[in-house]
């Protein structure tokens, strides 16, 4: 029994699931579910559809090069049954899976790292630039509490005292 990959979304197609389409040049297209089959019939390119593995790989969203992927390979020669080997393989599957998940999480963390500081920077910039939309610039100059923290820093004690008086 072989676990095939879906042509569209690259997920695993388990036996008895999905549909396969055989083109006249004998190329077989396997689909895991009707969603993928319909998208194929609509002639969509999996590299341009955001939820597919092909898109995520192409755009650097997921980990692509890793030694844990080496284990998953198409082998045409059936392995001779060996009790010890089967036992060890079952043990290794769990371990390899754990390693892969950890590495993937690390990859995602690294990928998000730049984003977080960028977002913060952008938010600060927006606050600085568009504070005028909430309060008129003239009013801002009078109102000490709306002045950005940088400027307040110089005379923070003073501003607090002012507020208390109000």
């Amino acid at each position, binding site marked *: 029994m072989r676990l095939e990959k879906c042509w569209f979304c690259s997920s695993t197609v388990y*036996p008895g699931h999905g*549909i396969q389409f055989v083109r*006249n040049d004998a190329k077989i297209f396997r689909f895991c579910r009707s969603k993928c089959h319909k998208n194929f019939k*609509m002639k969509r*390119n999996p590299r341009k559809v955001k939820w597919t593995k092909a898109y995520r790989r192409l755009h650097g969203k997921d980990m692509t090069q890793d030694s844990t992927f080496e284990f998953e390979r198409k082998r045409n020669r059936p392995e001779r049954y060996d009790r010890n080997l089967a036992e060890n393989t079952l043990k290794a599957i769990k371990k390899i899976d754990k390693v892969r998940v950890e590495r993937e999480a690390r990859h995602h963390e690294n990928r998000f790292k730049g984003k977080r500081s960028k977002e913060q920077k952008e938010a600060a910039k927006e606050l600085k630039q568009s504070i005028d939309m909430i309060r008129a610039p003239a009013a801002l100059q009078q109102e000490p509490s709306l002045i950005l923290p940088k400027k307040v820093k110089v005379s923070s004690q003073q501003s607090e005292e002012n507020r208390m008086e109000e």
Partner: protein
Amino acid sequence: MAAAFTSKSLRAARSLLGGIGNNLGVQGMPHEMSCSEFLFQQCRTFIQMRTNLKVVDNSGAKRVMCIQALKGKKGARLGDTIVASVKESQPGGKVKKGDVVYGVVVRAAMPRGRCDGSEVKFDDNAVVLVNKQGEPIGTRVFGPVPHELRKKKHVKILSLAEHIA
């Protein structure tokens, strides 16, 4: 609103069409598809009386028309045997135009369930001509054929076939 959306999607689809077709190396795909064809693919159904089928062997016939399905109330499916009349044939072949022949459906566009519960479907409706005993008339079979033919005792067709899907 709806009209605007469809026209937009169509335009996008048109621009996509050429690119994908080239990527996949699709041959003979009709690039000028109409809107209805593109959005709603035709629902494929049984092979019934007056269905035209391609003949994919070297028996000499090119196109046959189904005149009777030998199995099933609604019609024949993948792997079933039909009675057909030859509509187009090559000169000097074993069968002539107007002959009544038996044929095994080796490709059907209608999805057919497999033994494990998944489904298989093909590009077109194609047939291999056989005699009454179920032996193929031609000596070659072109294109892919499903492995289900083994269950139907058409091992000869399977052994002649180029590809087994």
